[in-house]
């Protein structure tokens, strides 16, 4: 009954229906949560009441600094991803210059792509200190390699016809790459950015917990850490909720929106 959704309703119809069902389940979950902690003896430190969580969230949002901290986290990750994209394009460019340089890039990817950012953390602290710069470096590392790998796959999968059409118009080298190869590999770039975001978000939250109050305030990771230290479980739950929400907005709204504007519109979804 519920799941027999008729997809002829179009994207809008399906989403509206789905939205209601999700709200229904969430409401049920909150209801059961509230009832549950009243019936069963659980320490509010372990599982606070949802009402308390909501209260504490509102308080943090109005008088506390959670909004600024969220924006701070997003700003740091934004910088990291932007620099990562730039770096990926740069590495692609270098790799396109000669066969041996291409192999060098392959080697770098093979060694550094599987390396978890956390493993590099102590080294990064040693080299760049304990400030925001280090966190950005960690993010760049998390972001750069999936992007390069995806761009590379993209370039290799492009139909030869595109290149030949470009060459027919007198395009070579950089002109060919800029006007034809890069736009044509957009689906791969977007897939890379999605992976990069996921890795970066995880790296960021853990890095923030370790690095502390960056830029005076710190970010969401630091928020979580502080609330645990002060045993403010309600706020802790609230912080987790915010982190989950950010992830949902980015992955559920921003990325599909970007895809809709570009590769969906152009029929380039893979």
């Amino acid at each position, binding site marked *: 009954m519920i799941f027999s959704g008729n997809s002829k309703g179009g994207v809008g119809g399906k989403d509206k229906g789905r939205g209601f069902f999700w709200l229904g389940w969430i409401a049920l979950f909150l209801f059961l949560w509230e009832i549950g902690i009243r019936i069963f003896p659980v320490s509010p430190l372990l599982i606070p009441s949802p009402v308390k969580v909501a209260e504490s969230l509102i308080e943090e949002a109005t008088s506390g600094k959670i909004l600024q901290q969220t924006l701070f986290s997003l700003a740091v990750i934004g910088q990291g991803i932007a620099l990562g994209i730039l770096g990926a394009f740069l590495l692609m460019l270098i790799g396109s210059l000669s066969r041996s340089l291409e192999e060098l890039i392959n080697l770098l990817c093979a060694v550094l792509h599987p390396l978890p950012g956390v493993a590099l953390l102590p080294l990064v602290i040693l080299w760049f200190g304990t400030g925001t710069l280090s966190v950005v470096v960690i993010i760049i590392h998390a972001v750069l390699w999936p992007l390069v790998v995806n761009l590379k796959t993209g370039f290799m999968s492009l139909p030869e016809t595109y290149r030949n059409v470009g*060459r027919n*118009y*007198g395009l070579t080298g950089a002109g060919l790459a800029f006007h034809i190869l890069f736009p044509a590999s957009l689906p791969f770039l977007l897939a890379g950015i999605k992976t990069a975001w996921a890795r970066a978000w995880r790296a960021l939250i853990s890095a923030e917990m370790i690095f502390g109050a960056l830029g005076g305030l710190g970010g969401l990771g630091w928020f979580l850490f502080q609330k645990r230290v002060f045993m403010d479980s309600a706020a802790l739950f609230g912080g987790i909720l915010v982190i989950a929400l950010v992830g949902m907005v980015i992955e559920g709204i921003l990325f599909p929106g970007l895809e809709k504007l570009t590769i969906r519109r152009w*029929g380039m979804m893979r």
Partner: protein
Amino acid sequence: MGYDAMKDPILQVKGLGKSFIQRGIKKEVLKGISFDLVEGEFLCILGPSGCGKTTLLKCLASFEETTEGSFLLSGEKRSKPGRDRIMIFQDFNQLFPWKNLLQNLLFPLQMEGVRDKKRMVEEGFNILEAVGLKDYARYYPHTLSGGMKQRAVIARALLLNPRVLLMDEPFGSLDAQIRFSLQNLLVTLWKERNLSLLFVTHDLEEAILLSQRIIILSFEGEVKTILENSLERPRDPYSPEFQRMRRRIYSLIDPLTR
């Protein structure tokens, strides 16, 4: 408008040969190809699949280097690809999917540095009308059928006014009806604009339908013979003259590849 041997050749191919080295063995794909394409001529190259027809066009477009011989375009040597000889591929993926039809058409002009946007758009619409796609200027390629895409590709090529159009089985992947309408369109455009066309196909009937001359390529990549095709237009595939032509060519084609 018949083939006139007296006219100046726009393309002269002299002893063109191309070989590849695969796993240490030299494979000769084309050998000693020599022919002329006269200005305004509709010349077909007929040959079985795998005989090197596409390779020949790629060499003439300079996407590949010849290993032997040479060719001249309007009396000059060519070594780099250029807009003076535009190639039309069989692929349905020749249009850039991130641009709409009009943007696809105008892209090569922009690459040349043409700045007069108003005139470019006007010419774009003119050529779209000539191929019957005027209403689809803002459509994205993925929304178009195969036949429409090929029409758009032809429009894009014509907009650049190349000296020669190199066509590599452009209608091969289309169903019979669409193919027929596109063949007629091509003949119309050819007559109206005095195009010089080098049209490659493996389809005997298509070659007879379109060409003024047919170059028959053997499976080994050599010119077997060059036939004149002076059937009167409009050509009827069921007329006795057409059948005669068909039988004649059929007897010349390499019996191993029938």
